[in-house]
C-alpha cells in the first residue's frame, strides 16, 4: 500500500520528477525554469509531533504536503526539527487515520455515520444524561490543550470534570512548583556555566531549541552532568554520566542539599531574603548526609559532594534542570523529588538570575467577547482532585485520569468525552482502562484508530489533522529561558484529506443538538483577530509569519512589591514548607520517603521507561517512517545491564519473558553496559494493540502493561516506575 501511494505521489510531484528527469549538470537558469513548473507554497504552522508544538513551515505542492522545516524565530524549534516533526507531517496521509465519523454497532465493529447523525445521536444522549444525572456526570478527559473549548461546555452544564493526562507525566512538578514558587522557572541554557540534569533527557524528549542551546553551551565551556540510571542520549554530549540506582533520586537531592548547607556553600542572603521554611527543612534533614545518600543511591559520597561544590562554585550560573516526565509521576516520592528540585536551586540562589532559572516572558492574548450566560453551580470533582476527603492536595485543574473506570463504576461519570488522548495505551493497566467503555456515552475524538477509540468508544469523531486545521494563537513558553515573549499560530496547510472536522465545529454541532444554542458564537478567525488585538499587530502578519517575537520584558530580578518578596505564594517567598501538606497531616518539607518497591532477587529488576529520540511517548508508533528507524536500530528492544544478563544466561538479541503481577510479555533484549544493573528499560512508544494501526500493532511492549492503576496521594501521579519485574531467558512457553 505504502509503495503505491508513494509512487503515485512521485508522479504527481513535478519537482521530485525533475530530480531524475533533468540532466544533473544543469545550470541555475535551467533549474529556475524547471522549478516554475511546480509551484511550491510555504505555509507557516505549528507542529504536533509532540506537545512542544514547534513552529514550522510546511511546503505544499500540488495540494500535497511535501516537507517541513523549523521556523527560526520560534524558541522551541530554533529553526530545527526533530525526526517526529518530519515524520508526523507525513502521517497526514497515514493509513491509521479515522476517515469519517463512526458509531459502534457491536463489540468489534463500527459503521460510518454522517456528521449530522453523529451530532443528533450524541446530543440526544447527552441531553438525557444531563437531565437524569446532572451536568456533573459529564467528564472531559484529554491530553490537555484547547481547554477553553471544553470548559465553555463544562461551565454551561455545571461540570467540574475536566481531566488531563498529566498525572501520567509530570503532575508532581506542577503541583509543587505552584505551591513553593507560585510559578515555574526555565533553565537559562544560554548563560549557565554548570548544568545538572537528573532524570531529564533533552536528547530523547526533544525540544530542538533546548538541545541547540545545550550543545552551544558545551561549546563555550559550560559543564554538563547527567544523573540517570541509563546512559541516555543527553549523556553522550555530557562531561559526565553519573549512574544512579533507579528510584533513589530523592536521596541524591537530599545529599546535595546537605552538602550545600553543612559546608555553608549555599547563598545565605538569598535564603534569608526570599525563602520561608529553611529552618524547618534543615532540622528535618540534618542527618541526611552525602554518605547516607551514597548508601541509598549507589553514587559515591565524594561524587555527590563534588557535584554540590561545583554547582556552588558556579552559582548563580548553575542549575538543576527542573525536569519533566522522568521523575515527576513515577515514584512514591515524586512529590518530594519535585520539592527538592526547588530546594537545591534556591540554595544556589539561582532563581531569577542570569545563567540560573528565569521566569517565562509574559504576554497576554485577547479573547472573543461572548454574551454572559447563566451557568449552574458545579458539583464536586468525580476524581476527587482537590476534594477535602479524597485527594485534597491534587491539582483540580489537572485531575486524576488513571482512575476513571472506577468513577464510571461508582456512577459518578455517565458521559465521557475523550479528546486527543489514548489512556488504553498511555495510562496504567490497559485491561482495567477498558472499563471506560461502560459509561452510558463514550465519545472519542482522535485522529487515528488508537486503542481507546477502538476498544471503548461508542462514537468516534475524527478531528482534522494538525496540518488541516487553523487554531487560535498560543504563547510560546516553557523549559527554555528567553527574555522575549513569543506567540505562534497553527494554520491550515492543506484541505482535509478525509471527512474530518476541527474540534470547535464538532462542539458547535454536539452542544446545539443537546439544546445549548449558540454556545460558541464565533469562528476561529474571530478568535485569532481577538487574540492579537491587544498586541498591536494584525492577524495577517501573524498568519504570514507563523511566529512573532515581541520586545524583551524579562528582568533578572526577584519579584517584589513595596520592597517585599511578592511571589504568588502565601508568604510571597519561596516556601520550603508547604502549608497544605501539613494541613492534611503530611510533613510540610521534603524528607526521605523510600520507594514503594525494590528489586531483590537475581531475576528481579525495577522496570523503568523513557522516550526514544525519534518517537513521542505513544502516538507516533504507527508512523512508517519513524517505525522504520525503530526497525533499523532495534528500537523496540528492552535494555538490560550486561553483567546482570550474563548471570541469567541472556545474550544480546535474545527473547526474554518479563512479568509482573499484571502481565507476562515477551520481548527481545539489548544487552548493554549503558544501564544500571538494578533496572530494565523499555522505550515508551511501543506495545500497540489496535488492530487498525497496522504499523504499530504488536511491535514491542509497553511499560503500562505491567503496572496497576494507583494514585500517589499528594499529587495524584501514577507512580509508573514503582514496579518490580522478573526477567527470564526465552519466550513464553
Amino acid at each position: 500500500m505504502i509503495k503505491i501511494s508513494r509512487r503515485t505521489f512521485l508522479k504527481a510531484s513535478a519537482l521530485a520528477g525533475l530530480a531524475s528527469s533533468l540532466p544533473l549538470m544543469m545550470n541555475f537558469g535551467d533549474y529556475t525554469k524547471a522549478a516554475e513548473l511546480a509551484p511550491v507554497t510555504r505555509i507557516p504552522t505549528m507542529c504536533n509531533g509532540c506537545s512542544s508544538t514547534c513552529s514550522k513551515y510546511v511546503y505544499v505542492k500540488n495540494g500535497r504536503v511535501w516537507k517541513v522545516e523549523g521556523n527560526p524565530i520560534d524558541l522551541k524549534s530554533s529553526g530545527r526539527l526533530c525526526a517526529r516533526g518530519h515524520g508526523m507531517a507525513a502521517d497526514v496521509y497515514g493509513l491509521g487515520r479515522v476517515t469519517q465519523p463512526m458509531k459502534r454497532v457491536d463489540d468489534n465493529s463500527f459503521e460510518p455515520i454522517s456528521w449530522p447523525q453523529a451530532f443528533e445521536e450524541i446530543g440526544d444522549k447527552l441531553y438525557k444524561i444531563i437531565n437524569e444525572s446532572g451536568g456533573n456526570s459529564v467528564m472531559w478527559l484529554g491530553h490537555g490543550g484547547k481547554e477553553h473549548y471544553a470548559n465553555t461546555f463544562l461551565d454551561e452544564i455545571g461540570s467540574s470534570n475536566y481531566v488531563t493526562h498529566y498525572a501520567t507525566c509530570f503532575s508532581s512538578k506542577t503541583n509543587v512548583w505552584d505551591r513553593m514558587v507560585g510559578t515555574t522557572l526555565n533553565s537559562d541554557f544560554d548563560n549557565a556555566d554548570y548544568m545538572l540534569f537528573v532524570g531529564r533527557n533533552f536528547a530523547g524528549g526533544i525540544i530542538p531549541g533546548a538541545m541547540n542551546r545545550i550543545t552551544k553551551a558545551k561549546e563555550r565551556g559550560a559543564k554538563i552532568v547527567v544523573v540517570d540510571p541509563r546512559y541516555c542520549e543527553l549523556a553522550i554530549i555530557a562531561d559526565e554520566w553519573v549512574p544512579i540506582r533507579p528510584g533513589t533520586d530523592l536521596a541524591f537531592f537530599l545529599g546535595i542539599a546537605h552538602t550545600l548547607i553543612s559546608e555553608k556553600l549555599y547563598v545565605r542572603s538569598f535564603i534569608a531574603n526570599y525563602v520561608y521554611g529553611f529552618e524547618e527543612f534543615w532540622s528535618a534533614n540534618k542527618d541526611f548526609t552525602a554518605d547516607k545518600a551514597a548508601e541509598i543511591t549507589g553514587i559515591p559520597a565524594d561524587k555527590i559532594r563534588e557535584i554540590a561544590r561545583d554547582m556552588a562554585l558556579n552559582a548563580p550560573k548553575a542549575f538543576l534542570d527542573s525536569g519533566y516526565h522522568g521523575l515527576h509521576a513515577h515514584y512514591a516520592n515524586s512529590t518530594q523529588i519535585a520539592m527538592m528540585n526547588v530546594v537545591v536551586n534556591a540554595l544556589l540562589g539561582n532563581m531569577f538570575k542570569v545563567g540560573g532559572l528565569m521566569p517565562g516572558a509574559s504576554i497576554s492574548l485577547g479573547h472573543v467577547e461572548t454574551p454572559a450566560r447563566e451557568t449552574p453551580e458545579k458539583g464536586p470533582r468525580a476524581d476527587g482532585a482537590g476534594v477535602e476527603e479524597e485527594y485534597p492536595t491534587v491539582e483540580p485543574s489537572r485531575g486524576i485520569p488513571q482512575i476513571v473506570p472506577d468513577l464510571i463504576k461508582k456512577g459518578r461519570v455517565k458521559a465521557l468525552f475523550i479528546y486527543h488522548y489514548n489512556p488504553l495505551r498511555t495510562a496504567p493497566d490497559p485491561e482495567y482502562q477498558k472499563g471506560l467503555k461502560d459509561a452510558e456515552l463514550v465519545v472519542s475524538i482522535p485522529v487515528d484508530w488508537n486503542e481507546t477509540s477502538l476498544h471503548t468508544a461508542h462514537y468516534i469523531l475524527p478531528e482534522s489533522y494538525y496540518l488541516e486545521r487553523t487554531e487560535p494563537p498560543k504563547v510560546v513558553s516553557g523549559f527554555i529561558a528567553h527574555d522575549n515573549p513569543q506567540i505562534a499560530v497553527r494554520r491550515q496547510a492543506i484541505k482535509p484529506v478525509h471527512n474530518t472536522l476541527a474540534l470547535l465545529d464538532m462542539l458547535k454541532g454536539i452542544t446545539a443538538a443537546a439544546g445549548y444554542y449558540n454556545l460558541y458564537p464565533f469562528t476561529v478567525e474571530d478568535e485569532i483577530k481577538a487574540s492579537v488585538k491587544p498586541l498591536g499587530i494584525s492577524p495577517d502578519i501573524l498568519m504570514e509569519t507563523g511566529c512573532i517575537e515581541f520586545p524583551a520584558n524579562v528582568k533578572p530580578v526577584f519579584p517584589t512589591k513595596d520592597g517585599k518578596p511578592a511571589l504568588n505564594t502565601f508568604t510571597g517567598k519561596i516556601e520550603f514548607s508547604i502549608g497544605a501538606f501539613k494541613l492534611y497531616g503530611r510533613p510540610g518539607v521534603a524528607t526521605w520517603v523510600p520507594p514503594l518497591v525494590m528489586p531483590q532477587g537475581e531475576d528481579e529488576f525495577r522496570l523503568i521507561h523513557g522516550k526514544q529520540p525519534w518517537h513521542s511517548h505513544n502516538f507516533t508508533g504507527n508512523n512508517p517512517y519513524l517505525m522504520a528507524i525503530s526497525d533499523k536500530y532495534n528500537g523496540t528492544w528492552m535494555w538490560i545491564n550486561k553483567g546482570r544478563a550474563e548471570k541469567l544466561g541472556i545474550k544480546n538479541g535474545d527473547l526474554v519473558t518479563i512479568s509482573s503481577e499484571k502481565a507476562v510479555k515477551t520481548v527481545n533484549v539489548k544487552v548493554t553496559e549503558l544501564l544500571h544493573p538494578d533496572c530494565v528499560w523499555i522505550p515508551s512508544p511501543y506495545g500497540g494493540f489496535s488492530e487498525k494501526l497496522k504499523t504499530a500493532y504488536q511491535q514491542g511492549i509497553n511499560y503500562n502493561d505491567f503496572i496497576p492503576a494507583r494514585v500517589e496521594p499528594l499529587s495524584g501521579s501514577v507512580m509508573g516506575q514503582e514496579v518490580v519485574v522478573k526477567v527470564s531467558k526465552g519466550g513464553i512457553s
Partner: protein
Amino acid sequence: MARFAMLIDASRCTGCNACRIACQMQWQLPPERYYNRLEHNEKGTYPNTKWEITPIQCMHCDNPPCRDVCPTGATYKRTDGLVLIDSEKCIGCKYCMVACPYGVRQINYDGIPEKCRFCAEYIIEGKMPPCVSTCMNEVRIFGDLDDPESKISKVMAKKAVYQLLPEKGTRPRIFYVRK
C-alpha cells in the same frame, strides 16, 4: 568553481535521526530507503562507558571507486565535487554498491543504486541540505572549501579533522572532527 564538502562533528550527535527523515522527505523516499545512517558504538564496561554515534552518508570521494567500476559511466563526478548518477545510463548492475567501502548505496524502486546527492539542485541555489539545516545539535557543516569565508573553511582551519577509511585511497569530501 566551488569545491563542496561536509564537516561532521560526530561528538555532537545524539542519534535523533532527524537527518535521515528530513532527507527522506526532501527526496520523497519511502520509509525503508535512506541516504544517511548512524553507526552506534558502545565502549567500556559499566559504569565507565561511552556511547559514540557516527553519521555516515555518501562521502563524495575525489577518487570514487563507485565511478571507477561503473561500466556505463552512469556514476560521474561533477566539477564541483559531487558524485552523482545519471539514471538514464544506469543499467542496475550494482557494481557501485559492492565497490563503495562505506556501504551507502541503496537500490531504489527504479532499480537505480541511489545515495546521498549532497542535494545537488538545492545547494546551487545557496540552500543547505536538510540533514544540515534540521540538525538541532549542528553536527554537520556544509559548504565550499574554495571560499575562505565559508563556515566550513573557517572551522576546518581551526580543528583537526580525519576521513573514514583513508587506507582505501578514496579521498572523501566528508571530513570528521577529531575528538
